[in-house]
């Protein structure tokens, strides 16, 4: 397992409130990593530290052994793309215009478009399947469509890493699975995907590498089949459960008692 992106002994806090102390995590290259854990355990905070939205008080987050804070802003943005929980769509923006915003880190001051920019946007819209409504205002779309548009935007960023903070929240079950399948496909194409997921069973099913967090620390990590057992679920979620095999994928499935 090779690792370009890692957090080493980081302390993460919002003002006075310390979320994580001495947290370390290596993100396996080319894999789908899912981060799970109860609300407020520091999953999102960890993701935010990776993309420099939060600077660690101590320790370093590094890409290729170089601290992410040492990268020029746009250079880092060409490596790591991030989809937060609450992105804002400017009033009146169309799908195509929003997806095109993903090209920002590849452009100069004057925002001149290259053939490469155009190709990246077209491919992103194709991959995320948003072409059918490419010229409609984002505000008119359904929740599932809108989420795919945002995914298309981070895809247009054309980065080796995709970090997504609870991308399936507020989606119905069909759209949840469609989105997770899309992320798996992107992993197959060679991207490294790191997603905070709410649903432990979906995480087990789709992730190559599962990271279970509790109280700001990593409680367990590894392949779902190796790390998920009743004891872990009791420890992390404080939930008594029985672990069975998912009848479709054979991965562990948590059934609360």
């Amino acid at each position, binding site marked *: 397992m090779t690792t370009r992106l890692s957090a080493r002994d980081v302390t993460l806090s919002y003002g006075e409130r310390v979320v994580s102390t001495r947290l370390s995590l290596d993100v396996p290259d080319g894999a789908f990593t899912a981060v799970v854990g109860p609300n407020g355990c520091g999953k999102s905070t960890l993701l935010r530290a990776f993309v420099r939205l939060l600077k660690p008080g101590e320790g370093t987050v590094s890409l290729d052994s170089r601290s992410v804070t040492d990268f020029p802003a746009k250079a880092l*943005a060409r490596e790591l793309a991030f989809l937060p929980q609450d*992105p804002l769509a400017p009033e*009146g923006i169309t799908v*195509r215009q929003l997806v095109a915003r993903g090209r920002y880190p590849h452009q100069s*001051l004057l925002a001149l478009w*290259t053939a490469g920019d155009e190709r990246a946007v*077209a491919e992103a819209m194709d991959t995320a399947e948003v072409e059918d409504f490419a010229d409609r205002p984002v505000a008119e779309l359904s929740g599932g469509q809108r989420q795919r548009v945002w995914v298309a935007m981070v895809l247009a960023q054309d980065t080796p890493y995709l970090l997504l903070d609870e991308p399936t929240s507020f989606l119905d079950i069909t759209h949840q699975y469609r989105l997770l399948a899309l992320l798996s496909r992107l992993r197959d194409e060679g991207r490294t995907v790191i997603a905070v997921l709410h649903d432990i069973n979906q995480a087990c099913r789709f992730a190559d590498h599962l990271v279970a967090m509790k109280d700001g620390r990593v409680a367990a990590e590894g392949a779902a089949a190796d790390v998920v057992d009743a004891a872990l679920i009791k420890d992390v979620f404080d939930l008594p459960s029985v672990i069975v095999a998912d009848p479709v994928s054979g991965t562990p499935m948590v059934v609360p008692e």
Partner: protein
Amino acid sequence: MTDTQQPDTQNPGTQKPGTQKPGTQNPGTQNPDTYDVRETPVSGRTSTVRVPVGDRAWFVQRRTITLVLGCAAAMLGLGFVGLSYGTSWATPGEVFGALTGLEPSVVIAEWRAPRVVAGILFGAALGVAGAIFQNLTRNPMGSPDIIGLDAGAYTGALLVMTVFAGASMTVAFGSVVGGLVTAALVYSLSRSNGLSGMRLVVIGIAVNAMITALNNWLVLRAELEVAMAAVGWNSGSLNGIDWDDLILPFAVLSVLLTVAALRSQTLHQSALGDAIAVSTGVPLERQRMLMVLVGVGCTATVTAVAGPVAFIALAAPQIGRRLAKAPGIPLLPAALTGAVLLQLADLIAQMLLAPVSLPVGVVTTAIGGGYLIWLLAQEVRRR
């Protein structure tokens, strides 16, 4: 789990005719490397025009081009009326004669022309300042005139005039300092648990009221001549502006508007929320600081010469946005709309109670006040 899922996610029934690409007919064999890139350019469709620049391209919305042409025509038309109008109407021949120098006219070339140019230049600057602050606060009411920056810049100018008896250069400087101090004050008062646009607007309105009271007090305490000059200027006026008054503002605003234009893409990227802005490579803190400086600079420069002209900065970006049908709050339409608006308001100010020329700020306040009430009602309804 991966490719085999794709047939389910395709929905040929809703696909527009002609949009289907060869590769999507048979998703099972789809290979991402062989995607045909669609003919349509990225910013797409027929509503944009592609301007090639070397091997790169620049996309311009058709609506924006129409708006530029429309506003240019309006400015020329209003400018012509502005040059003709006075205590007596000049004929078109006299105006052209004065412009070409064949038939020199001090009234047209030295009195009316600088006023027309000031209307355009200051209107554009106020429009851009408004668009910048509405972008930063993510609120249509977060414009400099509403949150007290005009009033603060005016305080700076008044202090220089009354206390230090300064000349125009120092008045301009005092005005910029006053605007910046007010911006810092509003920003620090509204900053708790992160920055909320609405919170900043409400605090800004309060600060605006207090500073306006301070301004009145300063005028009352001033020497009679200074007070008379200051009061004539209190609500914003283009009366008596000549070419000499415009040299410094023209130079300063040229620089500020150029900076704004160069940073506009970054400004619009920030509209996607702080998280996306940072993760797509916007240096957020630096960008904000720069934009505040440009916005305050534009407002203060105008205020130093013309006094606080309210409501152009509030209304122009929103009108411009609707006319251009562009996403977010774009700068160019705001500048153009602001220029036309201020020019129009100044003509109305001159004509309304002719031969008495009203301060243009009275007209903009009267029109803009109604607009502000409507905007407040909208905002309250939205919550």
